[in-house]
């Protein structure tokens, strides 16, 4: 390997990048825009659940029950209707998520100490929101029901009765359970993979289409040098992107940063190198830009978005899919990012992920080099 040759091609690559300010601008501005937009818009928090009430009872007892919903920050009462049909129609039209039906004899049954039922109509099409909404309804009603029951019993007994289990849930690392703390670090990985993978695969595919890649290969440059030099050219852009993304995460979104900045820098470099090598490999396989784009989307954007644990927890996936996810570098990088940002853990915990990220990078580098030397032969 000759560093002179690597440096020569590296200089050429930088000139290419500088000569196309529009692509460079896209590569720098796009991550910023994506992070700002998605960081603020992508939220899985379930609050302000739109709710509509059909109160067939119209008593003070039923109104007290409804007040529980009105007082909760998780529910927003959109209005009251006079029959179940209207609730059903509102669900059909996507106006509400939850319909609450208080039956006619509710107050009578509560007063008589009998079991009182009331009904929840739930739009289950978005199963995640629906199951969180359901757990809110359950815990709200359970709390209120226990309170009613204890009240009634206390009245009988003449003194307060205990409610014995004191169940405390403590949320670590993200105590306010804000989605942004969860989404933004993962988003950094996804954005980098998209920008890096696409940039590398498209640019190099273009050179294959133009035939300049073959010309380069026919010079004394060896495949390994070529792959390395191409990567370094993109790397300069990738480092700036990473810095922008991390700074925006910390200063704009106030995501806690509890770990080591050095570790973050080192792991980001490993990750970027791996992704750029991957882009070069794709372009060598695809040869045309259209195919490179398709392969890029299929092998970088989608898996990093879906199979990295960015949003969808890997534990809920079938075993086969979990196995596939081990080949996705973003999986390791998302874990590392969350570890550094939220948990503040260091190498002692993350070494496994770092090792696999390194292995991926080296593996793809060798593959890309091998592929290029195949082309040469």
């Amino acid at each position, binding site marked *: 390997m000759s560093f002179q040759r690597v440096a020569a091609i590296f200089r050429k690559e930088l000139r290419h990048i500088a000569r196309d300010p529009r692509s460079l601008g896209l590569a720098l501005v*796009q991550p910023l*825009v994506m992070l700002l*937009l*998605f960081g*603020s*818009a*992508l939220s*899985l928090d379930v609050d302000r659940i739109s709710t509509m009430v059909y109160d067939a009872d119209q008593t003070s007892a039923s109104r007290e029950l409804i007040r529980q919903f009105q007082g909760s920050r998780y529910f927003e009462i959109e209005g009251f209707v006079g029959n179940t049909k209207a609730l059903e129609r509102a*669900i*059909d039209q996507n106006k509400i998520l939850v319909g609450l039906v208080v039956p006619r004899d509710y107050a009578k049954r509560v007063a008589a*100490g009998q*079991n*009182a039922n*009331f*009904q929840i109509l*739930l739009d*289950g*099409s*978005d199963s*995640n929101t629906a199951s*969180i909404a359901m757990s809110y309804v*359950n*815990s709200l009603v*359970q709390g209120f*029901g226990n309170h*009613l029951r*204890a009240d009634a019993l206390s009245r*009988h007994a*003449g003194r307060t*009765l205990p*409610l*014995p*289990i004191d*169940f*405390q*849930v*403590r949320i*670590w690392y*993200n105590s306010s*359970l804000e989605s942004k703390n*969860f989404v933004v670090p993962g988003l950094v990985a996804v954005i980098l993979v*998209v920008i890096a993978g696409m940039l590398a695969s498209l640019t190099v595919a273009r050179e294959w289409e133009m035939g300049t890649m073959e010309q380069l290969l026919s010079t004394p440059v060896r495949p390994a040098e070529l792959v390395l030099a191409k990567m370094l050219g993109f790397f300069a852009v990738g480092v700036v992107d990473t810095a922008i993304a991390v700074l925006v995460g910390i200063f704009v979104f106030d995501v806690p940063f509890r770990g080591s900045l050095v570790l973050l820098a080192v792991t980001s470099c490993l990750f970027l190198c791996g992704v750029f090598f991957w882009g070069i490999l794709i372009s060598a396989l695809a040869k*045309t*830009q*259209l195919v490179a*784009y398709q*392969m890029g*989307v*299929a092998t970088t954007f*989608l*898996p990093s978005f*879906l*199979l990295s644990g960015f*949003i*969808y927890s890997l*534990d*809920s*996936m*079938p075993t086969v899919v979990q196995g596939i996810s081990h080949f996705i570098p973003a999986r390791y990088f998302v874990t590392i990012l969350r*570890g550094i940002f939220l948990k503040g853990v260091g190498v002692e915990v993350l070494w496994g992920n770092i090792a696999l990220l390194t292995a991926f990078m080296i593996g793809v580098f060798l593959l890309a080099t091998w592929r290029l030397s195949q082309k040469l032969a």
Partner: protein
Amino acid sequence: MWERIAQIVRKEFVQLLRDRRRRLAVFVPPVLQLFVFGYAVNLDVDNIRMGWMDEDHTPASRSLLAGFEGSPRYHIVALPKSDQEAQGLLDRGDTHAVLRVLPGFGEALERGRPAGVQMLVDGSNSNTASLISGYSQQIVAAFATPIVRKQQGNLLLTIAASGNPGTTSMKAPRLNVETRVWFNADMLSRNYFVPGVIVNIIMLITVMLTAMAVVRERELGTMEQLMVTPIRPVEFILGKTLPAAFIGLVDMGLVVAGALLVFKIPFRGSIFLLLSCVILFLFTTLGAGLLMSTISNTQQQAMMTSFMFATPAFMLSGFAFPIRNMPVAVQYFTYLNPLRYFMEIVRGIFLKGTGVDVLWHQMLAMLIFGVCMLTFSALRFRKRLD
């Protein structure tokens, strides 16, 4: 005129389907996406790894453990002995949560004093964390309710035995929630996500194919050659967009067939309505593709630009992240996103079986979008040709 259009359409198909790689690039991603979304995309939490830290070791604490083990959602994977061990489990991500039964739990329960149970949840995935704490609260409540009832009953009896009048009544109301879940009674994420894939596929394929078909000619210099032939701009546009529309429809057919046959997604609406909405949607995407081609000179620029528009459109369509959770300004912004309407339509037709009576707003919005987009880009396109 039709003959000339047919010629271009034929040429486009030949170019597109000529080599194996291009053929794969057009038909593999939809199927791949369908399977990934169908099998992998899942926000349900049904495999909770939990650490159990029992500092009490009484029959009561063991019966609480049995309550968790009885739920198919929970898997006890570690038995930490100390706080450090528990912290390590959460730090490494080995467990999602650690349940700590505080010392004196069993005794406190017996005496009717508040008994302490603490749960440490890894909140780095806020969605999983809130589902886990919801489920755990239900299990603890289910464990506690009979004990509470018994104790309250005992207490009332002792009060009654001590001769306090009027306390023999043990009647107390209990509230039951009857939940009726509509449209997706099993609450499977899959039923929600798979129909959305159709929207995404049609958009990606048709925008990209249209933009690339035009830009390729420009990049390779064959555009000038086409210009000197008797082809008129309208014919050129139709010739370039019709193949993309056709492939979009075929891809949609593939995805719908897969959704119904492989994933057994319920389809409750009308297939004709779905088809007509797809055609409405195609106006918008083909128009967008043409627009991309007018602002790009190279295929790379066209792809970067279309990716830059496609990603936000996809993310802000309500596909994965509910629109109602977004900041209000962004919510208004999503009204400018044609994907949003089509997403609502597709989900409505698949899961809710809604018809034109409910969906006409969205259809109207898509029609307006489509006509504006197509007219605007066709005009721009002609100007660029002159």
